[in-house]
């Protein structure tokens, strides 16, 4: 239990640093899609809601959990959809002009 706690803290720390390094490289051109994509990924919270609802322990938990699944799923579907729509619009010059 306590060792799991510590390993989770390490995970948080490493993921934070990794995120910082990876996201720093994202071109400012794509900052809007970046935000909608991370938002969709963040909706992985749906996994927690699924377990709570599926266990079916209390009516309250099922009720709250179902609404959590609804709003998280809408973020997953809507987030990926709009990110892809945005990225499809980014085209480079027809002459195939490379990077600046």
């Amino acid at each position, binding site marked *: 239990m306590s060792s799991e706690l510590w390993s*989770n803290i390490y*995970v*948080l720390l490493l993921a*934070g640093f990794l995120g910082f390094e*990876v*996201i720093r490289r*994202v*071109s*400012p*051109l*794509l*900052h*809007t*899609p*970046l*935000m909608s*994509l*991370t*938002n*969709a*990924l*963040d*909706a*992985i*919270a*749906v*996994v*927690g*809601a699924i*377990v*709570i*609802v*599926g266990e*079916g322990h*209390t009516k*309250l938990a099922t009720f*709250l*959990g*179902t609404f*959590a*699944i*609804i*709003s998280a*799923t*809408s*973020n997953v*579907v*809507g*987030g*990926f*959809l*709009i990110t892809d729509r*945005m990225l499809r*619009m*980014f*085209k480079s*010059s027809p002459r195939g*002009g490379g*990077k*600046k």
Partner: protein
Amino acid sequence: MEGTGTDVFIEFAYVIAVSLFILSLRWLSSPTTARRGVLAGEVGMLIAILATLLNHQIVTYHWIFVGLVVGALIGIPLGLVQMTAVPQRTALSHAFGAFAVTLIGTAEYYLRAPDISAFVMSALAIEVILGSLTFTASLMAAGKLQEVLPQRPITYEGQNKVNLSILGSAILIALIMVAHPGATWLFPLLILIPLAFGVLLIIPIGGADMPTVISLLNSYAGLSAAAMGFVVKSKLLIVAGALDGSSGFILSMIMSKAMNRSFTNVLFGAFGQVQESAAKTEEVGTVRSATPEEAAAIIEAAATVMVVPGYGMAVAQAQHKVREFYDALTKKGIDVKFAIHPVAGRMPGHMNVLLAEADVPYDRLIEMEDANSEFPQVDVALVIGANDVTNPAARHDKNSPIYGMPILEVEKARTVMVIKRGMSPGFAGIENELYYLDKTLMIFGDAKAVVGSLVRELSGGQGH
């Protein structure tokens, strides 16, 4: 934990999902690989959800499927909104994410109380405090962006003290609950107080501060999800939350730097303080105005044109006309580029998305530093609906409220043209001395209409 084969399989699926999430962000670094990134994210998400459904603790699937189906049905229209509505859609999705996390936190608390360790209770408190304040704050931000709420910042005496003491009381209750996790009657306060705080936090925010605020809320939503990861002991959630949290954090840093605000200033919500312009510009000089016909004649003679778009272009929905303008000039062999200030518009990257929507090639969109090194060689700088990000006072007038803010140095171009509705100042209430320079021509009118007539002149008037 070390249980059955299914458990091992589920954990393995989560590891794959996490790797795909990281690759997804990695591939987003360049427009050429970005769509692959979205695909990686989608596959990762699908794997994670399907694997979770195998969890043997799940005994009933009824409400799970109701939730998934209804959520997908709501998500589809949210994914199909117009590009001009992307800032408010983004704010809304931060609200949804935070809402989900808060609901899960509440359910977890009432399922477990009073049998909760101090550490889990701390994580739970962070989860629901950040979650509920992000929920109302994001709804407020979305309301302001959609213009159903007044966009004008509302400030009053001692606002920061009020806000900080409200937040303080929530933290105090959190501490009491960490000591006494069984105090179930306190738990609703842990949600209600941050809900109120979220509203108060956004009241003093004006439109121009939105890029910073949206990024900050993005970061909060991520952190609350990471905290939830500690409560439900899910490394998958911790990683996804940390990635989202650091993404929002980086964006808020970039935005606050581009507005010359310290990061602590932003963190404590002390934005939107519209300072009175200390020295009202006395020497209001003369303004030279031009008709679109006159402007088109000058543009036609140029070799290089730099367009500087701002929020005004988005409001006027002028991006498609701007693209026609780009086409007309390119056809004449004139080199056209677009200088993008990091905080132009209402969210990070707003201008890039609008111009990409209008089919302007992304390699024509250049960042502030590159643009500034090019301005001295530019024949015509055309400012469309941008104001404060072009004000030279930011560089030399120590009394100016925007002093120190990095700007696009359009005044270095040979000729500056500004398309503007009238002479009203920008969000900070500051006169823009750019408009009074000898080399500046003002073209008054609606951005879409003016660019439209420029296009007509440029493509019609072969006789020139």
